[in-house]
């Protein structure tokens, strides 16, 4: 194996659970665990993943799980759903901007319920400056974005057919060249997004226009461990953390002693410190950590 290049080591769902089962001495070395033993571990691992998913929002959001979306605005419409381009899995908004008809981006504020309620009138007309996401954590695809204000003119969104026969809508006005053609042009993602219903044939040297849109960067939920060979939706290095957490969860089922479980919990803490080194002091001198972190 070459050193200094990207690691090719991967860890699978069943490997993590199997390691945890060995840690709690449920499986002897050299013996394959059966599914009766793995079941609790698989369930625990998915619970842990969902906990991490909830935890990794706000300032702690996982930067590897970001997605983007474009909401296509309509005159007089203040509430937008997945039909207009809102992502179906928006868990936590990272950034927002309003792209005007000239293609310029204008930062927007992501506001809370109270802040939205304080806005008046709700049907203000103008360039959007604020967005409130109606939360629905039971069904992320049922959420809605409330935009304030809404422009009186939204322009025209060009729509073409990509070389993959799907429809693409323009998100940035431009004059087409081969480089911008969906999906063979190297730069097409800057100008088109895959949505729409009635695309015309793409033609080079044509002026395509974007309508009024809101660009959104958001954190999506982490992917479940559905299959035995699913990789964690977490970067390399999280394997030990997950293994020890599963061991803590399933330990009582395998008659681990309280002191052994405490030792596992210590391993979880140590693994977490390795993952997030900024949670510990960077010097051995005595000082008030609260002043620095």
């Amino acid at each position, binding site marked *: 194996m070459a050193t200094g290049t990207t690691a090719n080591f991967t860890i699978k769902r069943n490997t993590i659970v199997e390691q945890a089962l060995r840690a709690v001495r449920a499986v002897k*070395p050299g013996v394959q665990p059966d599914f009766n033993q793995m079941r609790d571990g698989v369930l625990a691992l998915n619970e842990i993943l969902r906990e991490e998913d909830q935890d990794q929002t706000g300032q702690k959001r996982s930067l590897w799980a970001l997605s983007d979306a474009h909401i296509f605005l309509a005159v007089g419409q203040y509430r937008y759903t997945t039909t207009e381009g809102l992502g179906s899995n928006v868990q936590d908004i990272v950034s927002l901007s309003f792209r005007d008809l000239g293609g310029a981006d204008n930062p927007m504020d992501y506001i809370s319920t109270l802040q939205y309620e304080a806005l008046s009138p709700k049907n203000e007309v103008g360039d959007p400056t604020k967005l409130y996401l109606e939360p629905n954590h039971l069904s992320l695809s049922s959420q809605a974005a409330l935009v304030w204000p809404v422009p009186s003119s939204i322009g025209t969104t060009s729509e073409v057919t990509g070389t993959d026969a799907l429809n693409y809508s323009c998100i940035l006005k431009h004059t087409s060249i081969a480089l911008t053609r969906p999906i063979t042009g190297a730069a097409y993602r800057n100008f088109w997004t895959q949505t729409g219903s009635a695309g015309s044939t793409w033609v080079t040297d044509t002026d395509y226009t974007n309508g009024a849109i809101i660009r959104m960067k958001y954190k999506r939920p982490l992917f479940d461990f559905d299959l035995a060979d699913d990789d964690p939706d977490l970067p390399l290095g999280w394997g030990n953390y997950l293994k020890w957490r599963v061991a803590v969860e399933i330990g009582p089922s395998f008659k681990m002693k309280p002191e052994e479980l405490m030792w596992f919990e210590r391993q979880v803490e140590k693994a977490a410190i390795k993952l997030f080194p900024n949670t510990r002091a960077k010097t051995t001198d005595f000082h008030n950590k609260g002043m620095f972190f």
Partner: protein
Amino acid sequence: MIYSALRDLVRTKLGQPDLDPTELDLFCDGGRHELESRGQYYFNAGLKDHTLVSGEGNYSLTSTPSGPNASAANGFNLTSYKEHRSLFIRDVAGTAWLGLPIGSWQSGLDMLPTTSAKPQMAVVENETLWFVPTPNAAYPVKLLHWNWSANPAAGTSTDEILTRWYMALLYAACWVGRKYITQDPNAGKDFEELMLEQVELMKEFTNRRMREPVNKISTSEAATILQASGGEK
């Protein structure tokens, strides 16, 4: 040792020179069964490479035809199948084997999809091996298993037990024979103890030779065996 020599020794040891040959075979077969029902031994180990059939979830372990709901000849055909050791699966074009845990229906049926997909679990039900969910492609699988062995058909033949562990089989056959002749469940305790001593030797040797602690030994012993082999710590 050839099989007929063992039969002569059993007859002599039991002090029954006029034993019917059928009874003698019964003692030897019963003795072998007593040995193999008490543990797994290296000479019982087997490995079967097989390819699953898309849309077919159940496979006969012991015969050629597939399970009860299928007629195609896709069974594992392991006529002496005793018990599984472990099972592996890989993607059709994949290069890495992944362990496929064997479990009970209760443990996995409520967690797994009903649509065809890459199997996540296997269930052994009588002589049928089920793959759940039903495979959606021709996945290669590797079944490591244990077989029952049998005494040779010919008196002049031999096998691993008769060659290396003949005392175990002799004591086992005598124990079975003594109980049979006396119709006393407590008879032949001396033979039983001698047999059990041999069984422990066979188990220990199997664990050491195969680096696979399949027989009942403590976890620390298993770890010692594996560490000695440079294997898993």
